C-alpha cells in the first residue's frame, strides 16, 4: 500500500491506451528534437572543426569574409605586417581553396584543399589513420580524409590522383575533417596548395596568429586591426562562431532544423494537451468529489500537473532510448551526431515545460467545475 495515495500515477496507469498515446506523442517529440539537434550540432561541429583544431589565437581573413569555406585570398606579404605587431609570437599562412579532382572512373569532383605549414603541422589533420601530417612535404603529397572515400573512392597511401592536370600522391589518411559542404577534403602543404591552383600564387586565404605567452589576445587583436585595415581579424572562437552563424542563418539549414524542432514541440504539446484534457474531462466528477471531501484547489491542480510531469518524464525516457538507436544508425552512415549532456538537459526541460503548459488548459477546466456536479446521478 502506498500512502499518500498516488492519485496522479494511478489515474495515468488506469487508462493505459490513453497513456500509450500520450507517451508515443511525447517520445516522438523528444526523438525528433534530440536527433535533429544532434545532426544540426554535428553539422555545425563540422563547419568549425578545422578552426577548432588549429592552434591559433587569431585568424586574419580578407575583408568581409563571414565563413571558413568560402573565404577570398589576399596578398601573402601581409604576413610581414602581422609579424611586426607587438606580442605576436608567430604567423602562419594557411590556405583553403576549392579545386577539381579527376576521378578514376571518369568525371571529376569538387574538393576543398587545405594548405598548411608541414614543419609545424599547424592547421593540418589532427587524427591520422595512416601516415603522418609532415608527409605532405613529399612532392605533391596529399592527405585524404576518410569521409571523402564515398565520393573519391577508397584511397590508400601511395595512390596517385589528378588535380587540374597535376598528379598528386596520397601520403596519408586522416579522420574527422568532414565538411558541411559535403566536398571531399584534402590536406597538403601550403606550397603544394598554391602549385595545384596557379591563381593562388603569392596569395594566402588566412593568416594564423599566435600571441606571446601572457599577452592579452583582445589587445593583440586590436593592434592587428589597426595595421591590417584591408583584412578582418577574428579570435578563434569568433571565427568559429561566424562560420556556424553563416551556415545557420545564410543558408536554409537553420530554418529547416528550427522549423522541424518547433513542429516537434508543437505536435508533442498538442498530443499531451489533448490527452490530458480528455482525461480531465472524464475525471471532472472525481475532482469535484475531491473538493467536496475537502481538497483545496491546489490539490486538484497538483494532480493534473503531476500527471503531465509523469507523462513527460516517461515519454522522455522512451524518447531517449529510441534516440540512442536512431543516433547510432546515423553515425553508421558517417553522419556526425553531437549530443552533449546540455542538449539532453535542455530537451528534458522543454519536454516538461511543454507538458506543464499543455496541462494548464485542463487546470483551467478543472477550476470551472460546477460544485453541484458531485450530486448529479
Amino acid at each position: 500500500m502506498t500512502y499518500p495515495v498516488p492519485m496522479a500515477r494511478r489515474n495515468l496507469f488506469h487508462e493505459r491506451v490513453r497513456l500509450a498515446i500520450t507517451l508515443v506523442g511525447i517520445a516522438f517529440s523528444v526523438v525528433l528534437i534530440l536527433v535533429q539537434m544532434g545532426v544540426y550540432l554535428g553539422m555545425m561541429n563540422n563547419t568549425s572543426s578545422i578552426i577548432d583544431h588549429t592552434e591559433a589565437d587569431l585568424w586574419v581573413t580578407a575583408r568581409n569574409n563571414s565563413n571558413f569555406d568560402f573565404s577570398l585570398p589576399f596578398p601573402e606579404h601581409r604576413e610581414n605586417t602581422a609579424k611586426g605587431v607587438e606580442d605576436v609570437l608567430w604567423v602562419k599562412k594557411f590556405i583553403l581553396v576549392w579545386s577539381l579532382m579527376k576521378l578514376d572512373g571518369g568525371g571529376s569532383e569538387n574538393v576543398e584543399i587545405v594548405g598548411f605549414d608541414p614543419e609545424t603541422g599547424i592547421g593540418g589533420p589532427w587524427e591520422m589513420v595512416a601516415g603522418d601530417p609532415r608527409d605532405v612535404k613529399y612532392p605533391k603529397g596529399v592527405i585524404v580524409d576518410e569521409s571523402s572515400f564515398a565520393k573519391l573512392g577508397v584511397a590508400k597511401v601511395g595512390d596517385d590522383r589528378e588535380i587540374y592536370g597535376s598528379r598528386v600522391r596520397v601520403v596519408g589518411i586522416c579522420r574527422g575533417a568532414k565538411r558541411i559542404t559535403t566536398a571531399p577534403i584534402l590536406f597538403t602543404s601550403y606550397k603544394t596548395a598554391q602549385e595545384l591552383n596557379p591563381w593562388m600564387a603569392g596569395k594566402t586565404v588566412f593568416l594564423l596568429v599566435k600571441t606571446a605567452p601572457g599577452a592579452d589576445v583582445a589587445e593583440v587583436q586590436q593592434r592587428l586591426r589597426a595595421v591590417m585595415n584591408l583584412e578582418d581579424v577574428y579570435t578563434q572562437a569568433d571565427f568559429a562562431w561566424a562560420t556556424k552563424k553563416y551556415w545557420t542563418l545564410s543558408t536554409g539549414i537553420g530554418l529547416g532544423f528550427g522549423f522541424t524542432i518547433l513542429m516537434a514541440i508543437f505536435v508533442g504539446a498538442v498530443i499531451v494537451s489533448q490527452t490530458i484534457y480528455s482525461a480531465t474531462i472524464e475525471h471532472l466528477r472525481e475532482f469535484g468529489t475531491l473538493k467536496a471531501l475537502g481538497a483545496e484547489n491546489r490539490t486538484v491542480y497538483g494532480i493534473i500537473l503531476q500527471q503531465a510531469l509523469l507523462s513527460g518524464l516517461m515519454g522522455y525516457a522512451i524518447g531517449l532510448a529510441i534516440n540512442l538507436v536512431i543516433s547510432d544508425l546515423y553515425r553508421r552512415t558517417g553522419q556526425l551526431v553531437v549530443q552533449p549532456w546540455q542538449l539532453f538537459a535542455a530537451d528534458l526541460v522543454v519536454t516538461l515545460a511543454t507538458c506543464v503548459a499543455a496541462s494548464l488548459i485542463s487546470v483551467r477546466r478543472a477550476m470551472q467545475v460546477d460544485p453541484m456536479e458531485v450530486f448529479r446521478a
Partner: protein
Amino acid sequence: MNTIRLAVDGVNKIYAGQATRVVAVEDASAAFAEGSVTAIMGPSGSGKTTLLSILGLILKPSNGRVTLMGRDVTDLDEARLPELRRQHIGFIFQSFNLFSALSALENVLVALQLKKVARPEAEAAARSALSRVGLEQRMRFYPRDLSGGEKQRVSIARALATNAPIILADEPTANLDSHTGLAIIDLLAELAREQGRTVVVVTHDTRMQEHVDHTLRMEDGRVYEN
C-alpha cells in the same frame, strides 16, 4: 436536547440569469442535532440537493445563515471552507463518486490523506471503516469489480473513516436494490445512534421514514416539518 451541529436559518438560493430567476431554496430553516437522522424528502426539483449542498458548504446561500458546530460560517472566505468540510463533514453520493483508479482501501485513504492523517492511523482507520461496513474481504477491489451496494458501502466507509461528526447523504439508496437499500439505511441509522453522528439524508425512499428521527419535506424550495 442534543447539541445542534448544523443549522440553516432563513436560507435562500436564487439562480438569476439575464431573463430568468429561479428560486431553488426559499426561506429554509432547519437544525440537525448530534445523534439524529433527518430525512429530507420531496419531489424532484424541490430543492433538496441544493439545500444539501448548502449544508455541505459546497454552495453559498444567496442569503440567510448557515451554522456549523455552533459557528456562523455563512460569510467565510471560500478558501477556508475545504478545511471545515475535511474536519466536520462526510459525504455519501447517489452515484457513489468513487475514484475509479483506486482500490476500495485507497478510496477511503484519500479522505484521510486530505486530513493529513499519518500513515499508521490512516491505514487502521480505513481498514476499520471498511470492516464496519462489511467489506473486509473487498479492500483491494477496484470500483469496477464491486456491486452497487458494495460501492455505496465504500462511500459510507469513506465518510466514516474521517470521524466526521456530520454525514450528508444524497439519495444513498437510489441506485440500489431494495434489500441492499434497506441495509444501507440501517447502517446510517446505526451510525447516528451508536456513534452520535448527525446524519442528513436526501431521499425519495419512503422506507427511510421508519428509520429516521425527523423528516423534512420540501416543495418548491420551501421546507416543511413533517
